[in-house]
């Protein structure tokens, strides 16, 4: 028996999912350290680099099918309104308009966890979908939108998180504005505070931020007889298949989702788009392909964001630096539909603290719904928690790193389980050395105009991945090898690491492998590319498949050589007999096999029971603050991580730097701004919504603290996509505090906040 079915639970983007799936029994031992390996851990150029650099790579928005129509949504200009009357006569009369969907002529497709419909007569945010036009060209569709006449009855609205949380009269949904308040308790909070020598109370705030992947959300759909083919810019082909099938009431097997390349996602492309289903409905009716590409404004209004947060902390500490109690009340807005704005996992799991009380609320407001955004909850939560930890250290006149080490935990404080691996202490040391932490002085030591500050923050995330995740490997008669897996490459290097893992096992050059991913018809199941789980889930399945292929090659060679298979040696793509007199290549073996293709399935093993699997890391920041202008310049970030094994050092460093740069944007410039008088978003383009440019980037140095996780899989890989962004804003905020001696308690840290804080502190 090499496989079995299991029932297990996996955490994806802060949510637990139960599943039943097939796993491989862990037959291969985890590889030893990377210096014993030939390919893994090296700097290997992306196998898809040339395609992308030369402009030949076809992204979803580049796909055009013959005879396709173009779809466009008419969206609500108001944050809250009821549609009284729709007049389509002028729009329908426009030449080239083929079909218009409104709530009046469209079935009630349930949306947003059954709190609304694909097209709903009540609109709940600026950008909410009102009508869908399909026309012969994009220009005609846009023109038609202007010709649709809608009578709205404007309704009262609320866009401020705090106001919505207490608002009695203005309700986003008739059941209220609060989604699933949750409580978590550990130990005895009162006893913990009674035991403390000091208590500190403080409040931290973060802003709503927008994903802004470069490729807008888009789909091209077509019905091939009764099969729906969806080209989608998605992080989750299998999930889109399931959600689309459910939405349309058809079998999953009748839906094929394809995504070869995508222009970023960062969590915003984990969900099914209304545009996809609207296009599918029209396409089915008119028997023509339909293409929908959102524009930048739609993208910033309608397809997700990171909730804001208001985090109220009370913490108890002993003189010698131990945490005795931690209380957290938090809320954040999830926009107009139910989502989660929870952020307490860092508070629950980062440090050893025996007594904890957490209350969290997700608040509805009349704005676009939230979606997972690169480490949902943790980015906000670490900013609050790590700002607070710095305040604790300052209260005790203690070095912030020393304070964190005093509260270091060797077991997961929630489950009391040991970790499969935790090298956070090593990461602290490496990152501290890289920034020059020995120069750290207490906050506010400098009185000059331009003040330098050092700060740090810790990081925790899941990222162990898990089953079910599969990979098929196919050897054809010409000796070509293709690997298939229903995973995705977001720009994270999935194509390349898949080829690297197979290359390591089969000892043949990486160029010999074709990698096919992101197609539900060709590829076996693999999880969504979210939760930092792609590499830790898929790489073991690929290794499993490649090892099984190697076994099969040896078996075949044994028959051909008429020898025992134990005596056959496999080396660099050749099978060699016991005395070295006979040698046969992989391609020759493929010719001898009486099969057109040799197809072998590999699977991810089950995660070890009784252990917590987490990624850990730390970032240290050096900043310069101009006290005359209030401008913060980040000079340097050092980062060190326990993320298990490094698969590809080239793409890993790139991904970590990218996370840090996105974290820098979160710390200093990114913020969705809504006009409270009109409920309209003011930051719907890249001119008003600032993201970092090449002029904003600091020096970044990275050192990995881990060799590999010894327990989780045959590759020992943990994920890194989300860990990269988690501690950056907190480290920068702590460095700014260190420079000024004044703490900015809300993100982003814009010049006006710095100047105000300096003025107030005088």
């Amino acid at each position, binding site marked *: 028996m090499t496989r079995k079915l299991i029932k297990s639970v996996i955490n994806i983007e802060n949510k637990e999912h139960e599943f039943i799936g097939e796993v491989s029994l862990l037959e291969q031992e985890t590889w030893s350290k990377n210096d014993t390996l030939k390919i893994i851990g090296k700097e290997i150029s992306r196998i898809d680099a040339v395609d992308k*650099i*030369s402009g030949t790579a076809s992204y979803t928005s580049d796909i055009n099918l013959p005879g396709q129509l173009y779809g466009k949504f008419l969206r609500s200009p108001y944050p809250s309104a009821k549609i009284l009357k729709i007049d389509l006569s002028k729009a329908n009369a426009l030449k080239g308009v083929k079909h218009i969907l409104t709530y009046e002529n469209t079935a009630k497709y349930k949306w947003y966890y059954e709190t609304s419909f694909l097209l709903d007569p009540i609109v709940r945010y600026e950008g909410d979908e009102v009508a869908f036009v399909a026309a012969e060209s994009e220009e005609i569709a846009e023109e038609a939108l202007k010709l649709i006449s809608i009578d709205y009855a404007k309704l009262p609205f609320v866009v401020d998180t705090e106001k919505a949380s207490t608002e009695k009269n203005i309700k986003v949904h008739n059941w209220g504005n609060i989604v699933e308040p949750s409580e978590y308790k550990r130990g005895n909070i009162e006893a913990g505070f009674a035991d403390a020598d000091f208590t500190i109370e403080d409040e931290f705030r973060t802003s709503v931020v927008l994903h802004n*992947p*470069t490729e807008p959300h888009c789909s091209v759909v077509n019905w091939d007889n009764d099969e729906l083919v969806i080209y989608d810019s998605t992080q989750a082909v299998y999930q889109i298949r399931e959600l689309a099938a459910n939405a349309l009431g058809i079998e999953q097997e009748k839906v094929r989702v394809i995504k070869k*390349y*995508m222009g970023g996602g960062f969590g915003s492309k984990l969900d099914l788009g209304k545009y996809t289903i609207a296009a599918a409905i029209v396409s089915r009716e008119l028997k023509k392909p339909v293409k929908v590409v959102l524009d930048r404004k739609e993208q910033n209004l309608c397809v997700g964001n990171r909730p804001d947060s208001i985090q109220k902390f009370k913490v108890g500490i002993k003189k010698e630096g131990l945490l005795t109690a931690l209380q957290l009340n938090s809320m954040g807005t999830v926009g107009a539909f139910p989502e989660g704005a929870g952020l307490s996992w860092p508070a629950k799991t980062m440090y050893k603290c025996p007594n904890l009380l957490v209350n969290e609320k997700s608040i509805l407001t009349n704005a676009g719904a939230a979606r997972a955004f690169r480490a949902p909850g943790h980015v906000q939560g670490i900013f609050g928690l790590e700002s607070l930890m710095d305040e604790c250290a300052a209260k005790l006149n203690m070095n912030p790193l020393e304070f964190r080490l005093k509260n270091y935990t060797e077991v997961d404080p929630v489950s009391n389980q040991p970790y499969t691996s935790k090298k956070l202490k090593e990461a602290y040391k490496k990152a501290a050395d890289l920034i020059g932490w020995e120069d750290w002085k207490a906050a506010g030591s400098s009185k000059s105009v331009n003040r330098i500050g050092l700060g740090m923050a810790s990081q925790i995330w899941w990222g162990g991945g898990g089953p079910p995740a599969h990979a098929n490997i196919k050897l054809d008669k010409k000796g070509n090898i293709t690997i298939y897996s229903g995973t995705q490459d977001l720009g994270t290097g999935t194509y390349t690491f898949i080829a690297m893992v197979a290359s390591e096992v089969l000892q043949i050059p990486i160029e010999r492998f074709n990698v096919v991913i992101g197609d539900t018809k060709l590829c076996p199941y693999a999880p969504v590319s979210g939760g930092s789980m792609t590499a830790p889930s898929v790489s073991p399945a690929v290794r499993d498949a490649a090892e099984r292929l190697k076994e099969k090659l040896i078996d075949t060679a044994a028959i051909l050589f008429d020898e025992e298979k134990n005596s056959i040696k496999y080396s660099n793509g050749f099978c060699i007999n016991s005395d070295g007199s006979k040698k046969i290549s992989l391609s020759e073996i493929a010719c001898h096999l009486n099969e057109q293709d040799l197809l072998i399935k590999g699977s991810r093993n089950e995660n070890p029971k009784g252990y917590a699997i987490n990624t850990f890391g730390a970032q240290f920041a050096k900043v310069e603050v101009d006290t005359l202008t209030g401008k913060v310049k980040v000079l340097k970030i050092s980062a060190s991580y326990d993320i298990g094994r490094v698969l590809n050092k080239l793409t890993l460093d790139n991904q970590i*730097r990218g996370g840090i740069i996105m974290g820098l944007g979160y710390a200093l410039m990114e913020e969705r701004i809504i006009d409270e008088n009109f409920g309209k978003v003011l930051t719907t383009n*890249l001119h008003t919504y600032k993201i970092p440019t090449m002029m904003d980037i600091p020096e970044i140095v990275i050192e990995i603290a881990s060799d590999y996780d010894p327990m989780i899989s045959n590759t020992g890989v943990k994920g890194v996509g989300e860990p990269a962004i988690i501690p950056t804003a907190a480290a920068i905020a702590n460095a700014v505090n260190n420079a000024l001696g004044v703490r900015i308690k809300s993100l982003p840290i814009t010049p006006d906040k710095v100047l105000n804080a300096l003025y107030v502190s005088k």
Partner: protein
Amino acid sequence: MPENNSTGKFSRRKFVKGFGATVAGAVVLNPSIPKLTKSLQKKIKISEKIKLNFNLNGKNVSTDIYPYNTLLEVLRKNMRLTGTKKTCNNGECGGCTVIVNKQAIYSCHILAMDIDGKDVLTIEGIGDMHAGEVIRKAFKDMDGLQCGFCTPGQVMSAYALLLNNKKPSLDEVKTAMSGNLCRCGAYHNISASVIEASNKL
């Protein structure tokens, strides 16, 4: 103009700093951008297609366009060259950067009829040239990309920079490339790719 850097292309941040939000659309007023030819001016009627003649990647081409079509639309739809990406369609991100008469421009921010009679170079056109090949290899070797969607624009900005400045300093690279946004944040590797290419050229 002080905001006009050595490549002839505006740096987004410098531009924004200097002029404020209201004139962002003025990116198309870059002096390098050609005037509408007289022969075209006479013919224009908004609802009627006009014939556009220009040199695309070394070949003279002709296509029927509406006067309101942007160069980006003509490249992607008429010429079926999808390497040039539509990202913000608002002159803010550089994803659609192409080279017109040796100057990098945002193709979403220029009307196609304005390039009548001009030379347009897109990502598809630089592969056959030595410099293009060197730049592409540098981006591959230095991993100057992640998702790759902004990459054609980055490569074209790099090409324009190196066309006009053979040995740029890191600061010059940063300034020239700062009008090309990369949300994945591959900036360090992008600038390293440009430096690497300049060393190899």
